[in-house]
């Protein structure tokens, strides 16, 4: 293990997780929870690039999830596009929109950036819930399935829908994680981390700060959009809540809780916060209290997030 780079270790751990977890699944419900973990993990991996690498905050990324989701809901019906193409279309729209609004928004810093992204997300949410002639309004609308299961069936393979989604989303998450990890060690990754540490210092050594921030914003928007598309197609249903403020907060919390600086940490955060509410339904009324407490305690006592803090503690004990 000593010779492996952190990148390979992360990837191996993820592959192992995707492959081994189903051995412990007693029912198809668990495949569904697993799929949700992977889809959230994908969105959160995008936020690692924005928050962890570049050090910028966004409280409006659910807006991009909404665009991805509604692209998959609307394009097959109105434009006759196959769902996969609709997903790509959503990603392109999200990326383009992020590029357009990113330029002015990313000049802002700290809390001002937070309120601007928040406002942007709310605008998307409002359009989705108010233009009911197109989006069905707050009641939401049906979404066509990806059609992967039918494809497999025509090849003679019959796999339950929950499992198809599990393996497919696991694969997409691995791809997303691979890209993010490669970005980390590339020159772009170095530039992003440099501007995270000190924008002025980075600018002094010739990093085009505005360009790299915008790049991180666009990439994370595309991740969020694809995760939104997958979520909508898996549920075969979408409502404007997918673009809501709470979803944005949820994604940022997952990222920071697990450890914004590391892809593996953030995916861990996503998995915990996805699985937790499923477990907490037992407590029902106490769900909010427990969730709020966990958010506060982790951030107070493990400030860098679960995974990086624990690794630090562990390696200190060894050293």
């Amino acid at each position, binding site marked *: 293990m000593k010779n492996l780079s952190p990148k390979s270790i992360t990837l191996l751990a993820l592959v192992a997780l995707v492959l081994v977890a189903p051995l412990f699944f007693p029912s198809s419900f668990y495949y569904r929870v697993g799929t949700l973990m992977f889809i959230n993990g994908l969105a959160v991996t995008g936020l690692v690039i924005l*928050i962890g690498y570049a050090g910028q*905050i966004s409280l409006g990324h659910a807006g991009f999830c909404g665009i991805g989701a509604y692209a998959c809901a609307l394009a097959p019906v109105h434009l006759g596009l196959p769902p996969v193409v609709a997903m790509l279309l959503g990603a392109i729209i999200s990326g383009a929109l992020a590029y357009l609004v990113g330029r*002015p*928004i990313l*000049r*802002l*810093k*700290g*809390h*001002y950036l*937070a*309120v*601007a992204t*928040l*406002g*942007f997300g*709310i*605008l998307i949410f*409002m*359009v989705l819930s*108010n233009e009911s002639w197109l989006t069905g309004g707050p009641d939401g609308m049906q979404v066509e399935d990806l059609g992967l299961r039918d494809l497999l069936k025509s090849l003679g393979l019959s796999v339950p829908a929950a499992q198809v989604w599990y393996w497919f989303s696991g694969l997409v998450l691995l791809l997303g994680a691979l890209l993010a990890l490669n970005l980390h060690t590339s020159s772009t990754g170095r530039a992003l981390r440099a501007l995270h540490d*000190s*924008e*002025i*210092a980075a600018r002094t050594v010739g990093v085009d700060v505005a360009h790299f921030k915008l790049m991180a914003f666009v990439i994370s928007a595309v991740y969020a959009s694809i995760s939104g598309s997958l979520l909508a197609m898996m549920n075969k249903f979408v409502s404007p809540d997918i673009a809501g*403020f*709470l979803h944005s*907060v949820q994604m*940022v*919390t997952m990222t*920071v*809780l697990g450890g*914004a600086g590391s892809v593996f940490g953030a995916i861990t955060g996503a998995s915990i916060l996805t699985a937790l509410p499923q477990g907490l339904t037992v407590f029902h*009324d*106490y*769900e*909010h*209290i*427990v*969730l*709020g*407490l*966990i*958010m*506060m305690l982790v*951030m*107070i*006592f493990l*400030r860098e997030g679960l995974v990086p803090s624990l690794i630090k503690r562990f390696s200190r004990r060894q050293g």
Partner: protein
Amino acid sequence: MSDLLQFVFSGLTVGAVYALVALGFTIIYNASDVVNFSQGEFVMLGGMSTVFLSAAGVPLPAAAILAVVITALVGVALNKFAIEPARNASVVTIIIITIGASIFLRGVAQIVFDKQLHRFESFSGDVPIEILGATILPQSVWVIFGAAVIFTGLYLFFTRTLTGKAVLATANNRLAARLVGINTNFIMTLSFALSAAIGAVAGVLVTPITLTSYDIGIALALKGFAAAMLGGMGNPFGALVGGLVVGLIEALTAGYISSTYKDAAAFIVILAVLFVMPSGLFGRAAVNRV
């Protein structure tokens, strides 16, 4: 003309509430650089506590005062147990802590109180007052008047009293304030108590008009935060202007353009202002030390 006046009245009423929430954000931000996203929960606690205390037989004025005191204590506890232990953490970390606190308080409220909508009697009845063809509820007058009293009171507190000046000194430079003998920990506690109490007063004043329930906090926190940023974070006068502007934009959009997009209008204006003035209307320009 009377239409316009009508919209302005309703805009000023909501605007006064937003301004009070924004003021709460500002006071805590000045003392500690923390943006407290559970500010909206203070408004909820003020209203809900009053409802349940008066249902338990406490006379309304006493219930309202008790509710404000309870909320102030919750504010102090929040500072003691969630903000102080996280000193010097990054902006994102603190944002998550305060959002966690707001979810936690909402969860507690949903168990201690319930999930229903509540209101109590207006202070001076519900007969609308007619002014130049437009009408205004007596309770709206209470809200606007209450906000004016609080803003004036705080202005006097900050400029005329030693403690108030100590708060301003802490806001300017915490280390320097400590060097001249100001107990900055006490100032932090005071700021959280003050800002929770202001939120609670807003909740008490507005509940007869808008009703209250355990989950009204998020929307108020978003609007209040936006108003505070519009005015320029850290500036109480900016909070007042920001709150009133957001309230008026909402009311005028709802009246003249479309009520479904009233929330959108406020955020479009805020985005537009931030594009031109990245530190808000009255904010100090940020200076970076390297």
